[in-house]
């Protein structure tokens, strides 16, 4: 089933995917055990003439076992998840590459710092729906929304973050492979929600330099 996961081109995606696989194996084994047991019981203990059901009200030892074992597995799983979560959502690495994305019905408005080198000023260079970044570079995104809640979803980078009106939320990623990756909105945002998408272009450093010189140094029309 997990072969359908989109290609991962992020630095933290493999950690997310390995948790995904781990939970998949644990739940698959549990599912098979429980289902096989259920089928065996249904066949073996079907009503047959002359046999009477076992008169049993339960078994305390079993109750304790099947309380503690799942609890232990689940608690271990959550401790295994803590670090990856913190890495993706809590500790954004420092970087000199920072852009702003403002979501609005039904576009991603992408801003790069203009000649003054600062974001959020008059001379910011703006694009609709297209983000260009260099490969192997930490990208910090100041995510905001202008009208309703949207969700910034990069399937190939295993990244999702809601953009909330009235807040600026910092997200980060580092793409490891040049290419063109889809950027859909993942939160219902109105009649144009479906089809609200952009593209993330990951360039080699040389290509990115060329693009930046062409598009970022001159004032947009």
């Amino acid at each position, binding site marked *: *089933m997990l072969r*359908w*996961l*989109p290609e991962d081109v992020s630095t933290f995606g493999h950690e*997310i995917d390995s*948790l995904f696989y781990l*939970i998949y194996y644990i*739940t698959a084994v549990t*599912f098979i055990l429980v289902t096989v*047991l*259920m089928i065996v*019981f*249904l066949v073996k*203990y*079907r*009503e047959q003439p002359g*046999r009477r*059901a*076992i*008169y*049993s*009200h*339960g*078994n305390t030892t079993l*109750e304790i076992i*099947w309380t503690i074992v799942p609890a232990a597995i*689940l*608690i271990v*799983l*959550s401790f295994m*998840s803590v670090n990856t*979560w*913190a890495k993706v*959502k*809590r500790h954004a690495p420092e970087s000199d590459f920072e852009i702003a994305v403002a979501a609005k019905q039904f576009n991603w408005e992408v801003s790069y710092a203009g000649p003054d080198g600062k974001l959020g000023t008059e001379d910011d260079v703006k694009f609709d729906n297209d983000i260009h970044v260099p490969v192997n570079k930490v990208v910090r995104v100041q995510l905001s929304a202008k*009208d*309703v*809640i949207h*969700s910034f*979803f990069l*399937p*190939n980078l*295993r990244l*999702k973050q*809601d953009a*909330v*009106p*009235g*807040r600026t939320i910092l997200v980060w990623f580092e793409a490891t492979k040049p290419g063109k990756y889809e950027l*859909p*909105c*993942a*939160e*219902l*945002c*109105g*009649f144009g*929600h479906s*089809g609200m*998408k952009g593209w993330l272009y990951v360039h080699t450093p040389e290509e990115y330099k060329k693009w930046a010189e062409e598009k970022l140094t001159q004032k947009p029309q």
Partner: protein
Amino acid sequence: MSDTVAAHAVHGHHEELGFWRTYVFSTDHKMIGRQFLFLGLFMLLIGGLLAMLIRWELAWPESPVPGLNIIPEPYIFPGEKGGGIIPPQTYNAIFTMHATLMIFFVVMPIMVGCFGNFLIPLMIGTRDMAFPKLNMLSFWVGLMSGVVMLASFFVAGGPAASGWTGYATLSARASYTGVNWGQDLWIISLILVGISSLMGSINYITTIVNMRAPGMTYFRMPLTVWSLFITAILLLLALPVLTAALAMLLFDRTMGTSFFLPEGGGEPLLWQHMFWFFGHPEVYVLVLPAMGVTSELLSTFSRKPIFGYHAMAFSMIAIAFLSWIVWGHHMFVSGMNPLLGTAFMMTTMVIAVPSAIKTFNWLGTLWGGTIRFTSPMLFALGFVSNFIIGGLSGVFMASTPVDIFIHDTYYIVAHFHYVVAGIIFALFAAVYYWFPKIFGRMMNEGLAKTHFVLTYIFFNGAFFPMHFLGVAGHMRRIYNPTQYEFLQPMQHWNVFITISALILGASQIFFLFNFFWSLFAGKKAERNPWQANTLEWTAPAPPPHGNFDVIPTVYRGPYEYSSPEVKEDWLPQDRNLGTQAAVRAH
């Protein structure tokens, strides 16, 4: 207790009531239960048809649906060769109303409204609810809320289109969705639902606490009653939070307040916190009665005491407590402080444990039984099978890093349909099982089993592949998946799901036919056709106003099947073997 019993004994003989008092403005808990049943089944039909439209759109986007051209523009666009094309705005309204109807007008009225009403007094051995008039009012307010909700289909702008979760700010301003009246009516209708279930839950709790028959201690109550008891407590505490949030939303929309609008200093996430603080206990409101019914039926048809009765009751109590501290798992990527995400992940992992306990105890009940594969039993087993999948798939999204990817994808849609739509199996199980008691006639077993086989196969055909879509990153609530390049290789699964869903929908004809045919022409039922132990089976079928000839005295727990004390394999709760004295309830 004794006063209540005495008071009811005086009223034991009821005078004949007219048509209106018997069938329409009835205060009899059984008639109110039937009214809720018909309300729920009617809404199930509408909610199901809406689901078919959603599936059509996802499999064959923007292609005309046969017959839909009767609806005018701009709600439906005419297709070139007949039929009608669903526009994106209408699509959003359709899935919003599908979920709203299924949750508030199908599962709640049937599992809680119908079976809660019908079964609680009969199963605990009393003549009616504590507050019969409040009970009647609860139904009529519930019906009114349904009328208001359905009316929203006919107002300008169409019904609500901001999802059943109604996230602000989308829901808080008409200009964001283009829906004005529809969203207001949605809010008003759900406020009425809140009032209706508040009255219902007060009634259930009071009845269970005060009116149990002599000898019916808490731990001799059937697990169905336990589940409804806990459900009522959750409803009592959760629904007012939703009502408060809805009132705030209505003020934002109509009176210019800014509870959820940042331009006036409000906070969109406040809506989500309030909604899910209600919303997660609500999930258990929906699923606990299904679990109770399933426990009941597995024991009855395995002819064996339920495995771990106390574990079953205490795991439900544990769920009731834990359900208040897990709401944040709906908000991991919402912008809520990520540290809170970690805390909510821990609590969410823990709440999986009582569900696991229940599943293992169901297996333990089957072990060593003599299993009778009647139609209610098949549906109860279907519920267990779906719940195993739905329960296990929940572990994925409990893990915060994995949730980053699968949040708001079809993985979530698959998960909650296995749990919440899976309740339909318990619902059918309950209808097939208690139909003889509710209507005094048997349903046809052959049709019921055909219904089970088709429903089971095509339910899984419809919902299992949604996991695959979710793994591929397929977002929820999108109108046209072919707009996305990365989803195009998965489109054949959308077609597969839709075909399964259409057959699943069509299979329900077996149920509808069986239900209405048996209502009038089914074989007359005996008092206890399933040889079950609980008190409702000692009453006539259907029970008259006042239920019992004499209030029964309870001598034992509800699941004494295959007891060595008697020759037959069941031992009703009220049979006096002369070997033990009845324990008074208080």
